[in-house]
């Protein structure tokens, strides 16, 4: 195939995908002009035939296409997706979770991609992972409870601190602040010694041992490095580059870490994506998550169906649930809502607000017993009657 042919293909009035397919099929192959013409003719003929027809009930078809394979999916909640160490919800529960537009998925995870300078070096990738993984104080040194002096003494391990690229002084500053802010425990005093790399916590209440132990518990578990919501990070090499997989998700936090490629990093928390990156990103996340959930189960579903569901969910600029508290519950038609769930309340409320059902939708028209405005019911063209006698 020569460049001339390539240009001719590019100029064709066909979808991008079809042009690329054609180029790929004809690559490293010589064809005659007649053959090319014949191929083009067949392609255009078929392209015309695959256009969607007006009045087609695409919504119902999409709902059926996603709902029907639901019966074939597994219920197994936990599964290991590629990374053996990280649990991810898959199968039907995950699909339901996506359609429910939950604020927080039951197993939030992220795939953090790295910028070029970090992505190909294991140690540098590790460095980024330390900035992300929530590390409690006890990982940085020994914590002892001094009952004689009613103190909690932290002896930091300088080597660990060096390895994890965090200065001792930083820890001394962060630890007490975080205990106060995140753990809401304030009744203590701190004394930090950067030189000897030690921190001494003294509770205000000098009488209670229980209090002392409580303080020790806070000290042990206070997160001094990384992002709070991200409990674990696994570094994996995939296709030559290192990728960080996390348990827990915090897009905004991760985006601020140096070395993270913000263009490719993704989370499985859809509403978080919509909040941080906008509704279009949220829509794409729904498509991507639903599609990968179905494909993982070996179920092929055309993207167009999932796109329609995603567009419907994101139509109003926020991610809305499929169901009572979302799309189905906010329909204009009283009868349609009443026929779905909480029948009586919808009717009573409609009466008070003087709602009017314009009978546009499917359920309403079925209820009053007239043709629905979809498919063959939507055609208003009527053939002229021909008189048979003449």
């Amino acid at each position, binding site marked *: 195939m020569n460049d001339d042919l390539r240009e001719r293909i590019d100029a064709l009035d*066909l*979808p991008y995908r079809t042009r690329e*397919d054609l180029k790929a099929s004809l690559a490293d192959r010589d*064809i005659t002009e007649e053959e090319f013409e014949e*191929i083009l003719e*067949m*392609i255009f003929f078929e*392209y015309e035939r*695959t*256009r*969607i*027809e*007006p009045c*087609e009930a*695409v*919504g*119902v078809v*999409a*709902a*059926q*296409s996603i*709902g*029907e394979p*639901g019966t074939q999916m597994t219920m197994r909640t*936990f*599964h290991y997706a590629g990374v053996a*160490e*990280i649990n991810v919800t898959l199968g039907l529960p995950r699909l339901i979770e996506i359609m429910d537009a939950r604020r927080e998925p039951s197993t939030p995870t992220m795939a953090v991609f790295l910028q070029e300078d970090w992505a190909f070096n294991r140690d540098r990738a590790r460095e980024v992972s330390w900035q992300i993984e929530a590390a409690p104080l006890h990982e940085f040194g020994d914590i002892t409870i001094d009952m004689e002096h009613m103190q909690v003494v932290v002896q930091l391990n300088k080597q660990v601190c060096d390895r994890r690229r965090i200065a001792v002084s930083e820890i001394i500053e962060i630890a007490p602040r975080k205990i106060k802010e995140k753990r809401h425990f304030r009744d203590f005093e701190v004394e930090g010694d950067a030189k000897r790399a030690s921190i001494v916590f003294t509770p205000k209440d000098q009488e209670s041992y229980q209090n002392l132990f409580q303080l020790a518990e806070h000290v042990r578990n206070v997160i001094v490095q990384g992002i709070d919501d991200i409990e674990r990070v696994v570094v994996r090499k995939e296709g030559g580059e290192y990728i960080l997989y996390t348990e827990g998700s915090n897009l905004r936090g991760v985006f601020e870490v140096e070395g993270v490629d913000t263009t490719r990093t993704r989370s499985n928390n859809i509403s978080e994506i919509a909040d941080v990156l906008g509704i279009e990103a949220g829509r794409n996340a729904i498509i991507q998550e639903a599609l990968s959930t179905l494909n993982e189960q070996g179920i*092929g*579903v*055309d*993207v*167009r169906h999932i*796109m*329609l569901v995603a567009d*419907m969910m994101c139509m109003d600029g926020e991610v809305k649930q*499929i*169901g009572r508290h979302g799309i*189905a519950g906010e329909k204009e038609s009283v*009868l349609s809502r009443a*026929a*779905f769930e909480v*029948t009586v309340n919808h*009717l*009573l409320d409609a*009466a*008070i*607000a*003087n709602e*009017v*059902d314009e*009978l*546009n*939708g499917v359920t309403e028209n079925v209820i*009053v017993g*007239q043709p629905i*405005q*979809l*498919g063959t019911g*939507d055609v208003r063209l009527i053939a002229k009657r021909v008189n048979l006698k003449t």
Partner: protein
Amino acid sequence: MTSPKRVGRIEFGLFSPKEIRKMSVRKIIWADTYDDDGFPYPQGLMDLHLGVIDPGLRCKTCDQKAADCPGHFGHIELAKPVIHVGYTRLIRKLLRVTCRSCSRLLMTAEEVEKIVGPEDSDLTMDVVSEKDVKKERVCPHCGEQQLKVNFEKPTTFSEVFVEDGRKVEHKLTPADIRARLERIPDEDLRLMGVNPDVARPEWTILTVLPVPPVTMRPSIILENGQRSEDDLTHKLVDIIRINQRFKENQDAGGPQLIIEDLWELLQYHVTTYLDNEVAGCPPARHRSGRPLKTLSQRLKGKEGRFRGSLSGKRVNFSARTVISPDPNLSISEVGIPLAIANEMTIPVRVTPFNIEEMRQYVLNGSERPAVKSPCGANYVIRPDNRRMRLSDANLETVAEMLEIGWTVERQLKDGDIVLFNRQPSLHRMSIMAHRIVVMDGKTFRLNPAVCPPYNADFDGDEMNLHIPQTEEARAEAEILVSVQANILSPRTGGPIIGGIHDHISGIFLLTHRLRHFRKEEVLYLTQHLDLDHLPEPDATDDDGNPLWTNKQVFSLILPGELNMIFRASSCQNCETCRREMCENDAYVRIIDGQLIVGTIDKKAIGAFDGQILHRIIRQYGMKRAARFIDDVTKLSIRGIMLQGFSFGIDDEDLTRTEYGQIDEVLEGAITDVERRIKIFKEGQLEPMPGRTLEETLEMQIMQVLGKARDRTGEIAGRHLGMDNSAVVMAVSGARGSMLNLTQMAGCLGQQSVRGERIMRGYEDRTLPHFRRNELGAQAHGFIASSYKSGLSPTEFFFHAIGGREGLVDTAVRTSQSGYLQRRMINALQDLKVAYDGTVRTTGGRIIQFCYGEDGTDPARSSYGAPVDVKGIVESVLKEEVK
């Protein structure tokens, strides 16, 4: 035809007491229903003015008979007002946001504007809510100090005074509340989302109760002649009885305490009459203890009015029976029993063109004796809508009377189009249109190739049949719903109808490797195909008789111009493909409609990934594809019958060597597990990152045992070759897998619950047969036996545990995915493609500017692609295309 009148819109509002009285045809004052003669009491609950249900009587309001009278409302004058339970939340809100003395909204104009927006703009639809008003403030209009309004379920409201520093609750009677609601000005109501033109809030406090017509609550006459009243009537009786007593006490000036008690009782009865499942209110019960089904319960839920009677309806002209297979039928046909064909009818209008034919139908009568006999008719309808049943006695007279303009309801005959359905109807292919073939027997017959879209099998499944009654319905059925139109699934864009099970084994056996057939054999194979001549023979045998190859025989059913190259499902995915020289004959090459090399199996003609099928649909259309499926099913069944195909217990037999090897592998695995446990117990185990020691050990054990099971499978597989039926089925993709075979012949492997070894049971052990805290393979559900050799008692128990999990899983899954499906349908059902290519709701809101971003119909796409470029290039160039 009915007139094309449309219901344009439905408006919702409240009835005012005035309207209720105006609508009422009779004031009801007696709690009794019928007198001793079984005649309704005047002004009783069954008053003849309210409509009639007994045949013979006439309605006193409209003077029509029971069948025609729609029923009329009556009314009960309540002695004192009572609250409508459904509106307690609204009443609570109104009491809390309005002043207790002047009933104005407790907000200044500025505050209102902040929430609702400037007066002249109606952009914001926001409504004042309870939270917008501070509690216990002073009224900005009259300066009255507000009190806290308490609400107690189900219908009690009270105000809280502070008296001498103590809180005192003062109950508000419905009459008090009504008085307060009456005073709320219309403008303020609008701000709170209430439209006073149709729904004044005081109307939610009932002073008059409408009595629904008798037609809505018919009484049933039991076998013993006793009348049994409807639940609603029972409840109304209670209300009237208390209401009467209340009135008497009131008139007699009864003590305050008794009046209050009666008022509460009346409130209770009206509450349960409206809704018998209110929180904080004991449900009213029938004498037998069953809770009454009152108004709310009639509407609610799956069997309620909305979902049960309005959205879903019962139909006539339907039939249901067991299904059974018949590979000699076309996929677009369905065999129906004579008994059903005789009972069900299609209305045909008599015209000058068909009057003789119709007359013959009438003469044939309603008893068709045999499948082959001509079809008759069951009813004749005259232009005045009088219906005449045809019986032996009146056949000839009716046939003579028959005139143009009459309608004959004729019986079903071969070729009639019907809708065929199997529940659960999860997708549109669950209902398809077939053509009838009348048959002997009592079951519906269908070609097994159409089982996948219905998800049907023949273990006792039943299916439904519906007869379209109008010309429009039949046209839609034929063009849109027919089996041909649904071969491609809109879910994937690939075929969903195609060969299954024996079709695949049969075609595999027929086309595998190169074989030659004698003429008799070829004729046997092709006897059900529509052929006019055989191709040139490929060779001759020693006696000079012509011989045909198996590939030639298969090529007979292919369209002449078909060109395609693909790999069969028996392809082993070798590193370097040897193409035509493939050892497994898995490289399929079809040039100009001739199968040159390769085996036809699931990949080629299977129900979900039939590649040949897919290509034929795209290049030759649905009709040709349907014929191809018909031909394949017939040919493959002959193919499998020519050789014979069976499977028995001795097909799982292995030799002594294999059994020895399997035992060796299993023993090795079990000792390996023991070894790892020992390492773990000695504390030498290295944990995996992010896992505890125990978890690491478990994963290792699972891995070792899984590998062992696979090894036994390999050993068994080595012995069982292509001469084994199970292997043929697994390799061709017809049914089962090598894993199933492993479990039958080799070893069952690890049983699991939630992806882990079996851990539950007694304290620290699964069964008393094992020591406490034992970690070994056998103690946690590893089954070393095979199905053939049989399981030991402990193994059998573990197997049952694992099997149970599967059953529970299926049960939970069906309900969950069913609900998901219902929600999805409800959310998306109103979407359609508009004439401009956008996707809109039926209300006109745009969802997508171009359907699927490229306007391609997934049902016509080639697995999602707008054009099957590969197929087109392949068919033009006749070469394999990547």
